[in-house]
């Protein structure tokens, strides 16, 4: 039943009840007058026989369980009045709650967007990036040669498969007026299936197309919208890349990104301008490698296996090429690669501090309420003396704190959205997934609930 209907019906029923009582009294009085009783006396007699109309009306009301609602309204009205009467106390209480709730909501929203929301890949916990670890120069994320990756494929037991990808492939969309420089990648044909991402329209390229160096291209959702207006018949159309015509064969989902959101399309690995040379060179750092771990294999296990393979390769392919980074391998889980290795730790520290902040806010408020309770002992004594039950008093206090908490939560949201906007504005460019951050409704509810419970305990 809608609230409006409820109110309407309730008003109507109360009017009915009042009219019914009045008509009863009049009828009785009229009857008594007809039997010869004076007017005034008749009315008095009618009233006396009826009993206390207020009590009977309240009893009628209680039948429909309106009393609970009435009490709640009274309590809330009283709480409002009480808050208005002590504006200093109210302001401090709401402010401390707002800061606690706001800070928690803002930080936890960041944590959730960066760390907890799933990546747009199948089983992302098993996805890793494999880098060459350059001991000599202290560089942890060097590329790897195609030949070495083939050796990894043969020898490794920890990985289901490896996919290979360029390390940035900026090109010109030369067909546009004016031509546009965009970020793209050339990738091995198994990349999409390894990530577990299927195109929303069309298809991705096959191993044959890769081997035959077919000029085909898979677009990002954003580029497809921008160039083709999201038209389904874009498949088969041509896209001129660096002066060469490519056939559009597929579009990836909106949330898909690889390796970052800036990348606009993906072409076969073999279309790399230096493919012929890179295909045969051992001592180069040209490619980026993605690996999918077999189920149940940990990153540490994979790392130690790759260390062994690296030592083998180092013995088998000795070189004194000073520019070569070596055969050591650095295995990085994809989530850490995306958000940064230090990020989880930093966010945990931040989250811990805002949680403590909320606790402090709650305990502050608890003490404030306690102090006020001491001041209000007189008021409660009077209320008890005039007949307020214990339950009724507790209910009143509860309504007061819930009203405070609600006001704190509302101000907290406002504060959180401001804080989040501020955080996003000072964040350095290039933090992945940052655009995905919004105030999370679930997070907010949780924080508000925690603070209400926290205050009730006092």
């Amino acid at each position, binding site marked *: 039943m809608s609230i409006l209907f409820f109110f309407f019906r309730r008003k109507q029923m109360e009017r*009915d*009840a009042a*009219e*019914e*009582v009045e*008509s*009863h009294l*009049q*009828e*009785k009085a*009229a*009857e008594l007058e007809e039997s010869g009783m004076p007017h005034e006396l008749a009315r008095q007699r009618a009233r006396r*026989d*009826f*009993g*206390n*109309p207020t*009590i*009977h*009306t309240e*009893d*009628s009301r*209680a*039948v*429909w369980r309106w009393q609970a609602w009435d009490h709640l309204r009274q309590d809330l009205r009283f709480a409002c009045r009480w808050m208005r009467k002590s504006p200093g106390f109210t302001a401090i209480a709401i402010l401390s709650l707002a800061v606690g709730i706001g800070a928690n909501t803002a930080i936890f929203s960041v944590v959730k967007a960066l760390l907890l929301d799933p990546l747009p890949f199948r089983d992302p916990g098993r996805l890793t990036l494999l880098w060459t670890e350059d001991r000599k120069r202290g560089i942890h994320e060097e590329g790897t040669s195609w030949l070495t990756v083939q050796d990894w494929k043969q020898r490794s037991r920890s990985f289901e498969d490896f996919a290979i990808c360029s390390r940035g492939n900026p090109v010109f969309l030369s067909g546009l007026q004016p031509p546009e420089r965009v970020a793209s990648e050339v990738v091995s044909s198994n990349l999409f299936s390894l990530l577990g991402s299927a195109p929303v329209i069309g298809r991705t390229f096959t191993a044959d197309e890769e081997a035959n160096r077919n000029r085909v291209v898979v677009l990002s959702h954003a580029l497809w919208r921008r160039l083709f207006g999201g038209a389904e018949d874009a498949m088969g159309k041509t896209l001129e890349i660096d002066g060469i015509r490519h056939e559009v064969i597929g579009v990836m989902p909106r949330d898909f990104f690889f390796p970052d959101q800036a990348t606009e399309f993906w072409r076969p690995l073999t279309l790399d301008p230096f493919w012929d040379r890179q295909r045969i060179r051992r001592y180069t750092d040209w490619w980026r490698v993605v690996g999918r771990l077999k189920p149940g294999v940990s990153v540490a296990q994979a790392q130690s296996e790759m260390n062994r393979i690296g030592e083998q390769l180092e013995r088998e392919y000795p070189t004194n090429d000073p520019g070569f980074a070596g055969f050591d391998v650095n295995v990085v889980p994809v989530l850490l690669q995306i958000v940064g290795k230090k990020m989880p730790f930093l966010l945990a520290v931040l989250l811990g501090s805002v949680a403590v902040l909320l606790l402090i806010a709650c305990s502050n408020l608890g003490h404030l309420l306690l102090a006020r309770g001491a001041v209000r002992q007189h008021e409660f004594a009077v209320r008890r003396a005039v007949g307020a039950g214990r339950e009724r008093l507790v209910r009143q206090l509860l309504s007061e704190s819930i009203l405070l908490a609600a006001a704190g939560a509302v101000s907290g949201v406002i504060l959180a959205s401001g804080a989040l906007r501020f955080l996003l504005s000072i964040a350095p460019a290039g933090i992945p997934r940052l655009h995905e951050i919004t105030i999370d409704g679930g997070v907010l509810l949780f924080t508000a609930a925690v603070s209400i419970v926290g205050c009730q305990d006092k």
Partner: protein
Amino acid sequence: MQTDSRGLFPGALEMMVLQMLRREPMHGYALASRIKETSGELLQVEEGSLYPALQRMLKEGWVQAEWALSARSRRIRVYKITPKGRKRLQREVSSFERMLTGIARVMRPSES
């Protein structure tokens, strides 16, 4: 409230009202005076306590209410028994009769 209808056991007022309404639809005042009349003023029911009882019965769906005009052309709310109310009355009456018989036997053991 039921406890305010002094001397009546819980549900007695409802039972009597349903019994009255079984014969014909009536408004609140008529019900009150009829109960008083037929009981020969033996039952001292506060007239007002009739209305919470009527609300309870409305809520349970035992009676229906409609506004109408009285003989003195005053707006009155007329109550009518529903099939659900009839069923309820039957149950109440039979359990009431069992209770009366039981009490009677206890009070006058020589007859049993």
